[in-house]
């Protein structure tokens, strides 16, 4: 405090020692910050490191005392066991297929809805908007009981369409909100030009708006895919046979099946987060803030 004061009143006199002091203080601060960041990083990283380490261990050495990061029996056996088991591969196929379908269908429906929200004034717009926002807060458990009845009545119990339609209810509101936000950023003149030339709104949407909205659609798509990939409650309740189960349920099934094959569970967990990891690595540029913006504004 005093140093700042004097340097302000007499800058020339104290310039040299002050600058040296500031540089030293900055270096100390930087070292402190890096130390704090490193210690903080242990919180998220340690469990993940242990998960990886366990996936390469023989099951008998998972809980060895004292614990070791790399044991003598280091192997890919757990991965091989999963990747050669048709039942477990089926979990992955189901998850990919369901999440992929949900993504495509959600994007299609959301783009249409977002176009209406972004480009039109119409009666009931505000109310529909509030409904779409509130739908996000409907507890899944509330819907579960009637869905169980509904899906059985519609003949969709233990089928792909049953899960796909179910997941769309949860992905759609968010997708609409994010897509509307994205369309709002695009100048109205773009699609109006088409209409002035006699094109229909439908043409304006698909020929003009959609092609330039690819970044927005990617971020909505990634988000949607991940919701569907991660869903647990409905996948558990609306399917019956193992050939319809998804990865989260598969991981849980492993838990009961062979008296805790921990190494296989960890290997399956690692494999289970690969799609998310890939989306993260390849598309991070697209959904920078897109999701948080959506969530924060939702």
């Amino acid at each position, binding site marked *: 405090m005093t140093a700042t004061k004097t340097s302000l009143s007499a800058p020339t006199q104290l310039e040299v020692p002050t600058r040296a002091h500031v540089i030293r203080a900055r270096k100390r601060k*930087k070292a402190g910050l890096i130390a704090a960041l490193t210690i*903080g990083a242990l919180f*998220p990283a340690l*469990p*993940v490191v242990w*998960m990886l380490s*366990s996936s390469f261990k023989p099951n008998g050495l998972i*809980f060895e*005392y004292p614990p070791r990061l790399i044991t003598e029996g280091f192997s890919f056996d757990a991965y091989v066991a999963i990747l050669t088991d048709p039942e477990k591969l089926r979990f992955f196929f189901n998850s990919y297929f369901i999440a992929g379908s949900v993504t495509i269908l959600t994007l299609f429906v*959301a783009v*249409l*809805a977002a176009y*209406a*929200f*972004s*480009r039109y*004034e119409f009666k009931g*717009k505000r109310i529909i*908007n509030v409904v779409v*926002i*509130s*739908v996000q*807060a409907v*507890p*899944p*458990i*509330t819907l579960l*009981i*009637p869905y*169980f009845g*509904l899906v059985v009545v519609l003949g969709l119990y233990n089928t792909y369409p049953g899960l796909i339609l179910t997941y769309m209810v*949860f992905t*759609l509101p968010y997708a609409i*909100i*994010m897509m509307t936000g994205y369309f*709002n*950023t695009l100048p*109205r003149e773009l699609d109006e030009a088409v209409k002035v030339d006699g094109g229909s709104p439908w043409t304006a*949407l698909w020929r003009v708006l959609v092609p330039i909205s690819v970044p927005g659609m990617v971020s909505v798509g990634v988000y949607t895919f*991940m*919701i569907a*990939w*991660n*869903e*647990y409650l409905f996948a558990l309740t609306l399917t019956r046979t193992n050939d319809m189960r998804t990865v*989260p349920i598969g*991981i849980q099934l492993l838990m009961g099946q062979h008296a805790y094959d921990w190494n296989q*569970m*960890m290997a399956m*967990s690692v494999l289970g*987060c690969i799609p*998310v990891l890939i989306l993260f690595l390849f598309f991070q540029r697209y959904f*920078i*803030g*897109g999701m*948080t*913006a959506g*969530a*924060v504004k*939702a």
Partner: protein
Amino acid sequence: MTHPPETTEATAAAPLATAPASAGSGDGGTGDEAGPTRGRWRGRRSYRGTVAPYGFLTPTFVLLLVLMVTPIAMVIGYSFVDRVIINPNSDFVGFENYAQVLGDPVFFKAVSNTAIFAGASVIAHFVLGMGFALMLNSPMISNRLKAVYRAIYILPWLFTVAIVAVLWRMLLSPNGIVNFFVTELGFAEEEIAWLSDPSLALPAITFINIWAGYPFFMVSLLAGLQGISSELYEAARLDRAGPVKQFFNVTLPQLKPIIISMALLDFIWTTQQFALIWMTTGGGPIDATEMVSTYTYKLAFSTYDFAVASASAVIIFLLSMTLAFFYVRHQKSRD
């Protein structure tokens, strides 16, 4: 649905202000345009009176009607009858099912557990998220180093809740790695059964939920921090405000809208958390971690008492809608 493990990367080069959903708002992306363009195009040709928007909204209407409105009507209907679903000739019983739920001490235990679980999670998510975001936002470290740390800090987000549950069951098992450290460092005499000790189970699953959920806050706050004008900090420095004062007088007030939104959303999602509890403790031991979600699920799919479960589901629905009301109102006030 629950916390989506959104893999968001808030690169220094592209803060919220350039994000798709906010680029039109021009206020650093913290505020308006939650949904449609409210007022933005007013005064221009607005196609008022055409049926086109309803056409575009038809698939959404149909989906929401069949999969949202109808089920909610159904569950309300279920809650007023007797032995629904399993018995085709069920009778109207009025509020009997509600009386049964509200007269069940376990239900209140579940409500209080849910409140503790969600409240503690949200507070910890905020504190951790804010701390990490502030550190990651520091101009002192290089962008490359920042990217590395950011990737590490986001890690828990990459895991679906089923994976988180299994992983922590392994870590917290009596002869797991957590107990190794706890006993070796002398915090405990013997191994602790974190998830099966009635007094520790709730704190344990809350901790797991904190681990899994803070990146959501962190990324949002990081984006928010990058949206704060540096002029505000310069002005604060001219007023001789130290780092602490700057945090409380500039950072916090600037981030307040984001923080309130995130906290409300997080609270809503955490109260609805099912998978994590189901896969770690199953609501036990002796109801110690029973949540409203697990309580309702068990009524329906373990005891097949769908009618009473529906009453419980409706009560949860009403509680959630109350929270959603505050959320929507807050979002609107930011427009």
